[in-house]
Every structure is written in C-alpha cells, then in structure tokens.
C-alpha cells in the first residue's frame, strides 16, 4: 500500500483527467441536489458534497437493465445476449458507508454457487475511489452502529482523506495503484500526515450523533415475528419504496419481458418489499397482505435474515431512508423502540 499527499486544490483536476480516459461515475450537483452520475466531458465532480440522494449501487445494479433480447422465429425463440460490454470505469467519491454497501451486495450477487454476471462484470471493471468523512455529513449518519466507520473504507481501491491543506491518498489495491500515474505529482505521506489522519478519523467517530442498538435487537427479532409492536409502525407508510430505492444495500429486483411484435427484451428492474405486488402470487393470494407485514419484512431482512444468512447487518447507516421518507418513518426510531421491548 502506498500513501501519498496531494494539495487540496488539485483533486478536481485529477478527477477531470481520469474522466478524460475512462468513464467516471461521481457526485454531481444539480439544483440543490447531489446525484451520482457519469461525468460529462470536461465536467468536474462536486467535491463539497455531503452525500448523494441516490446510492452509488446504481452503477453495478442499475434500476433498469436489459438482460437479453429475443425474437420469435419460425424455428422458435432466438435469444441474443445483451452485447453491451463495459469498459473500465472509475467510481469516484464514495463515502465509507456506501463502500461497505458493496461488500454486502457482493455477498448476494457474487457467491460461489450463484454469481450474477451482470453485477460481477461491472463490479470487476470498476475502480472505487472512496472519500473519507472528515465530519459525518448528516446528523442522521449512524455507520458506527452497524459495523462501519466514517473514515475507513475496506473494499475501496483508493481512499482519499481530507487533512488540513492536503488530501492523503492511499492506494489500497493493485487496481488502485494502476491509477497512480493519473494523480500526477505526489509527495510521499510522512508520519505527521498519517497521525493527523488518525486524529481526524477519531474526531469523525466522536462526532457521530446517531446511535442505534442494531445488533442488540437481533435476539428480540429471532422470537417475535408475531408481536403487537408490528401494528404500530406502518400506518403512515405510503408503500412508495423510496426507502428501498435510495438504500445502498437493498437489492431486490423483478424480471419481466417487454415485447413488441416478435421482438422483445428481458428487463431487470428494481423492486421493493414495500410494494403490495412484491409478494403477490399469481393466484391472487398475497402472503404479505398489508403494510404491517411489509414493514416487518424490511426490518427483519436488514437486522435478522441477512445476519442469519451472511453474518452482517444489511444497513450501512447512511440515513438516506430516514431523510427521504416522505412521511418521516425513521428506521433509527424503530430499532430504538424495539430495543426498549427487550
């Protein structure tokens, strides 16, 4: 691993330079909202961002993705694989919580037995450049409660941490090191810089205001699938799925065919357990008939089922669902309330 220093002002141009060579997916500000997008020619990323509205998972697991094309012919159906190939890409400016989301998504999409080629290919061809949080960007951030850290980014290829006049750039993987040349003149990081990083990182941890008993509620969840508590959280919920769509770890999808005449495409689109048709069966029966059962699923999946299956909580504490829920359903409050029942 190499640790280098660059002047703060230089970073924007470095990213611009990288973007001249490969597609760069980075935070961009439009109006008062920040989204991850591919940088247009000559466009700089927005560096002063807190975090984006959408999660960077969109790059590997887009909301709408064509899986294949088909044509009905006299000889039967002809299938054509989606021929889009991905060049090497760079994902720039990922916050540590969102970097963690990729580890969780890998557990689902990149298993020994089942591997999702669409996700894996994009993931493998992408170099992830993380930007540590010098301060937690939102008062709703709770990464440290769910196994994360505001200044560490295990799983990133390059980690950039803001110091005082400089950025500390750590090349964490061979993929990351390949980009070294594009960073231009780099000074080696000295002891003082590394110490300063440690100091700021401790400050960032201390500045996290939101804490939830995320692991503690597991035992309660294990034995309380039926409990009056579940009647108390869902009434205001609009079943809009905004929480799942913006969540960096939600990964449910639907597959459907869209045909025109003899030609069709097979599409994969995001789905959400908050929707009534998510669990609707062809017979008309719905095993999760109401929003009560759907909210229980959302919470159970994140804090119990995923833990049972992969030994990790499926929430990275980014707070997107908290901030964007139109009726202020707050997953932190729900977890805290469950802990009180324990």
């Amino acid at each position, binding site marked *: 691993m190499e640790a280098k220093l660059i002047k703060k002002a230089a970073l924007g141009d470095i990213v611009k330079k990288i973007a001249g060579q490969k597609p760069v997916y980075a935070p961009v500000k439009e109006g008062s909202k920040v989204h991850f997008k591919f940088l247009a020619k000559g466009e700089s990323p927005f560096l002063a961002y807190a975090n984006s509205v959408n999660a960077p998972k969109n790059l590997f697991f887009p909301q709408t993705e064509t899986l294949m094309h088909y044509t009905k012919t006299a000889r039967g159906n002809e299938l054509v694989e989606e021929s889009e190939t991905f060049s090497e890409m760079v994902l720039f400016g990922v916050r540590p919580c969102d970097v963690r989301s990729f580890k969780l998504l890998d557990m689902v999409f990149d298993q020994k037995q089942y591997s999702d080629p669409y996700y894996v290919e994009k993931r493998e061809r992408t170099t992830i450049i993380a930007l540590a949080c010098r301060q937690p960007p939102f008062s709703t951030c709770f990464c440290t409660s769910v196994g994360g850290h505001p200044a560490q980014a295990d799983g990133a290829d390059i980690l950039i941490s803001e110091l005082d006049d400089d950025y500390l750039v750590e090349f964490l993987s061979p993929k990351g090191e390949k980009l070294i040349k594009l960073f231009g003149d780099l000074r080696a990081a000295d002891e003082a810089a590394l110490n300063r990083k440690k100091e700021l990182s401790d400050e960032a941890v201390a500045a996290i205001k939101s804490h939830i008993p995320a692991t503690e509620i597991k035992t309660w969840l294990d034995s309380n699938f039926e409990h009056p508590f579940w009647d108390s959280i869902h009434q205001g919920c609009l079943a809009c799925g905004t929480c799942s769509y*913006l969540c960096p770890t939600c990964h449910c999808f639907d597959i459907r065919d869209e045909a025109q005449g003899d030609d069709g495409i097979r599409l994969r689109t995001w789905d959400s357990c908050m929707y009534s*048709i998510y669990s609707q069966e062809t017979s008309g029966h719905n095993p999760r008939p109401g929003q009560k059962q759907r909210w229980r699923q959302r919470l159970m999946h994140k804090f119990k089922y995923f833990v049972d299956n992969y030994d990790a909580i499926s929430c990275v504490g980014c707070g997107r669902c908290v901030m964007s829920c139109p009726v202020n359903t707050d997953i932190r409050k729900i977890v805290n309330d469950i802990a009180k029942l324990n």
Partner: protein
Amino acid sequence: MNSIEEKIREEAKRLLDEKKVDVVIGYETGTLPLQTAPCFITSSDEVDKLVWNPCCKQNLAIYVHSALTQHRESQKRVKPEDKKAKIVAVVARGCTSRSLVIHLQEKQYNREDLVIIGVPCQGYIDKNKLEAKVDGLEVITGSIDGDAIKVETSKGKTELSLIEVTADNCLECRFCNPVIHDFMAGEAIPVYESDDEFAVVDEFAALPEADRWDYFSAEMNKCMRCYACRNICPSCYCKVCFVEQSQPEWVGAGVNPSDNQVFQIMRMFHMAGRCVDCGSCVEVCAEGVDLRKFLKKLDKDDLDLYEHRAGAELDKEAPLSTFRENDAESFIFEPK
C-alpha cells in the same frame, strides 16, 4: 401549544372518550427538524401527540380512504349480526376537506363514517423551497417562531421568513378553510391575496413549444418511479392502478424517458376536476419533480371550461362523472 392544537386535542379526546370514533388521524412531531408524521390515535391518553403547525404537510384524506376501505374489506366475510362499524376522525384543512368531498361524491364511503375536525390553514413549509434556501445543506435544527423560521446548517444559523418557504399552492390557495367540517378548531381565516392563481400556468403556456417540451422532459427524467406521488394522492385510490396491470401492460416498468412520461401523463389526466392542489405529490417526491405546473393546468381548465373546482361543493357534479351535450370539447378538436 397554539390554540388550534389545543382545540384539536380536546375534540379528539372527547370523540375517543365518548366512543364516537375509532381512530383520529392527525399529525405528530417527527424525528427530524421541521417535520411531522401522520399519526393514528386510538386512545385518549395519546391525544397530546397531536400537533398543528406549518410543518403539517401531507393531505391526510388518503389515510381516511384506506382505513375505511380496509375496514370494509375486513367485514366482508363477517356474519351480519357481528359486523362492526368504523368511524374515522381526521384533522382536515381546506385541501384535505376537498379531497374528502371528492371521496364522498365518488361514493367511496358515507358521510356518517367520517368526523371532520376542521382547521383553518395558512399553508405549510415547502421542502424544496427550504432546501433551495439552504443550498441543499441538511437542516440540523429548526424552529418556528411566529412568522420566522430559525434554521441551523453546517454553515451556521439563519433566519428565514415563513412566507418565503411556504408552498406555492398554499400562497395561492382559495380554500384555507375547510369546505365541510363537523367541528372547527379555530376561527375561519381570510385567504391570501394572490394576484393571479394561474400565473404559473399562463407563464408556462406563453413559452415556445420546444421550451415547454424540454422542461417537461427534464422533470420527467428526474423521476425514479417510486409512485410516492400517486400513493399520497387522495384521488389515486384505485385498488389496482394501471401502472401495476400487466395484461395489458399500459406502461413499461423500465425507468426511461418515454415510460416515465407515459406514467405521469396518464396519472395526471385522471386528475382533471379531481386535483385539489394540496401539493402533496410534490412534497413527497424525493427527486423534486415539478408536477404542479401540469396539474394546475388541469385545475385551470376545470374552472375555465366547466366552472368547477375539485371538491369545492358536495352537491356539484364533477366534470369527469357527468356528461352534458354542450360540454366544452375544444381541447379535443382544436388542441393548442
């Protein structure tokens, strides 16, 4: 606590104690600054949760509709002698009461199923306007003090006037006072003096067609098809929405310009004479899509062509459910 809030709580307590209603739907303080959440009070011990302030945003009529519909469904297989009634009370300002009127006109439930706690309303804080004022920064703390809002962001503290962040639909609202109610939690108030309620539509209509199309396409491209706008809308209560139908499939599931536009155009056209301009669809949207400009055009046409305002009068027929031989049809034959 303001006096409206006090009266809402007293009335809610009385209704619950006297077993006049099963649930009171209102607003409670949220977990984030300047936010409230819908709340559902079933016991009079909890009435102190109810609040009334400019952070009360959503039109609550959709919750009335779902509570009563779900109850009706649940009673379907119950023996006649065991059937239970359910009565819902709701905190309703002008726009909410108009949505309730639409439900009643469309025979969704009966007037006896409903107790309306009316509130005079001076409008709510528009999250998009507030977000623009603080340049997208997080509001860390916020409080309302008379006509001023004090907010704190990572850049420090500022004071804004309430009026500069009040939603446009509220600034132009002619229905600050409920059109029907069983109880009023406060005196009726005068409406804002808006020069021209439809200026937003006329200004847009005056733009060249290409500019209008660009604006519309750009707004639709922001949409992530979560359907929060549809789900909060009291007039969007269909058991199965066209969006979810698969045979035939009216609109593709993919997020792309044409399917996004088809979804929004089809939804909006259902709103002719049924949109009360409560602004809820805009308020719930996480991507800040401007739906209002287009919905307001329908509102204007409803008034200009049919002398009708959505949900304003219980016994006035609505254009979508009435046919008259001399109905205006110029928009079909001479579209502009």
